[in-house]
């Protein structure tokens, strides 16, 4: 027994002598049995494919805390999941306007920043934001812009959202699957505010979207990856970060920040009220803010980091990309979302449901079928009665 301990100690000493790179698998902390549930956007973390950094595995290795990772499609799905209840999450990463809404509805925990020393790396411009003015609830994860990704093989160079209404590309246009992003595009095109609360204006936006529907192939989110890469679709409004990843697979893809303006967003890490392991969650937040981790992570997902120091750990090409980090002049056109009143959101959602729901069949077809069924039924009943009367 003593011998094995001694050998183990010697081995440890030997390993300690060599400066082990922090990504190596050797010096892992034993599992503590703690588990956190992380709920994040789809394709929004570096997961170790193709030799990239595996963020969650690295976190487990360093802290011994295991990560239960699951994904959602958009802010609205996240909100629905939290609101429905029944599931507990320790980490969520909503966008700005959704964070404001969650704070307003008292669904977020205040963070204990003593556990998050790496918060100091966050650039000043990402602090004291509109959505979290007191910096109590959230720590920025990424930021980014929305634009049009298109395939240059089939689509002429574009600079306007109106390309998504272009009949020539009918059935090759993908559209946002969530209401807020979709309505924003419509608002830009109509020259309205993307944060409008005016009922009439919202209706106008919905009408514009309904106009677009005949040309839309599908309303999707991350499904656009495969559709765009294998050229099943030619145009999609999506996030700049995802463009960088898609373009690696299909070099014919191009990106544009439309002239009418576009949305700029910050996605930040929060702890919802349903969390069961707050201190472990804070460790996770701290870990994500480590410049080295953030750099490796952003390299893989293509989004922009709010930590300037992280850029030194990134592929220089990504770190200087004009699409991930647009110049001042472009950013002047950028507008961010604010939280809307519940009534407006409800109106938007119900209009959105109507737009997305099928065209349906003409009424008379329904009536004809009904009559036919009834006739058949009566016929059978009569025949049965006749037969019984023999």
């Amino acid at each position, binding site marked *: 027994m003593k011998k094995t301990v001694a050998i183990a100690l010697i081995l440890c000493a030997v390993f300690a002598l060599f400066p082990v790179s922090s990504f190596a698998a050797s010096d892992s902390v034993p599992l503590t049995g703690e588990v956190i549930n992380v709920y994040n956007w789809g394709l929004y973390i570096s997961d170790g494919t193709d030799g990239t950094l595996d963020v969650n595995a690295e976190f487990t290795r360093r802290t011994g805390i295991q990560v239960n990772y699951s994904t959602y499609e958009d802010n609205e799905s996240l909100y629905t999941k939290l609101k429905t209840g029944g599931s507990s999450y320790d980490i969520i990463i909503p966008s700005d306007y959704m964070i404001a809404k969650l704070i307003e509805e008292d669904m977020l925990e205040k963070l204990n920043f003593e556990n998050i020393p790496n918060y100091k790396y966050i650039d000043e411009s990402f602090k004291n934001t509109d959505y979290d003015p007191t910096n109590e609830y959230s720590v920025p994860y990424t930021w980014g812009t929305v634009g049009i990704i298109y395939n240059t093989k089939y689509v002429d160079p574009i600079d306007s959202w109106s390309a998504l209404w272009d009949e020539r590309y009918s059935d090759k246009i993908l559209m946002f699957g969530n209401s807020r992003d979709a309505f924003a595009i419509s608002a830009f095109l109509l020259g309205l505010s993307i944060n409008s609360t005016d009922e009439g204006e919202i209706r106008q936006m919905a009408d514009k979207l309904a106009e677009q529907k005949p040309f839309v192939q599908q309303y999707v989110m991350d*499904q656009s990856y495969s559709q765009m890469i294998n050229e099943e679709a030619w145009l999609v409004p999506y996030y700049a970060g995802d463009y960088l990843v898609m373009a690696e697979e299909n070099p014919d893809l191009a990106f544009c920040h439309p002239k009418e303006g576009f949305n700029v967003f910050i996605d930040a890490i929060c702890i919802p009220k349903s969390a069961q392991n707050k201190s472990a969650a804070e460790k996770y937040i701290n870990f994500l803010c480590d410049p080295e981790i953030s750099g490796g992570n952003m390299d893989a997902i293509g989004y922009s980091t709010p930590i300037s120091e992280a850029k030194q750990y990134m592929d220089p090409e990504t770190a200087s990309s004009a699409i991930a980090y647009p110049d001042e002049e472009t950013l002047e056109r950028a507008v961010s979302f604010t939280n809307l009143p519940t009534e407006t959101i409800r109106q938007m959602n119900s209009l959105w449901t109507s737009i997305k729901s099928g065209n349906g069949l003409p009424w008379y077809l329904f009536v004809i079928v009904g009559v036919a069924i009834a006739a058949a039924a009566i016929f059978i009943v009569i025949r049965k009665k006749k037969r019984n009367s023999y």
Partner: protein
Amino acid sequence: MKRFNRIFTVAVFIFLYAPILLLVAASFSSGTSLSNFEGFTLSRYSELFSDKNMLGLLLNSLIVALISSVVASVFGTVSCFGIRRLGRRAQKTVMTVTNIPMTNPEIVTGISLALLFVFIGQMLKLKDVMGFWTLLIAHITFNLPYVILSVMPKLNQLDRHVGEAALDLGCTPIKAFFKVTLPEILPGIISGGLMAFTMSLDDFVISYFVYGPAFTTLPVEIYTYTKKPLPPKLYALFTVLFLAILLVMIVMNIVQARDDNRSRRNKNAKGEITLTRI
């Protein structure tokens, strides 16, 4: 006409199997897209077997399917005896309720259970009610009717006098049950249980509404995957599962064939063909 029917049947089988073959072929392709076969590789399989996450999900699915089908089989069979002792009207009502999960659209079953679980969670002040237990309860609930509806007819066919004869000949009721009744209804239990197992293993819709972050099954995860580019190791997993199920079915087929032959010899006069159904 006969020839047409045959050709037609072959065509239908091709229709049924074309997508399956495509998925199997994709598991050997070095490309990532389903529609492009690029080059032969076995690396998808090594990727699959080194992916603890996916194997864990498969294990989750198997655990839920196995426990729920076994519990449903035992619970359902016991209940069948009870139901049969009820009055005619009560029996009819119970059977109507039993049929509800069978005829209700799965999505409605799913959301109704989700509403219930969330409600219970709020009552008990549980933050994470969704998970293993809710999945298990949901699966047992939709598995029970399969068992009941396949055990009940067997029980109705059962000759009461045989049981009584066994009692007269000095068997204890328990012994009579295990020696006489159980063997008679066993095929019903097995076919109901197997049906339940396969239904549960591939259930997506109901699980989709009652899973929790800590415990997910494979089909639910595949659904969230299908919104993103699909990792090709899933095709390898599909192929492995396909072969496993094929194997199980072949074994069952052989067992059943033997069983049929025996019972045909026994019941030669009746000459009835037992239905092969799972």
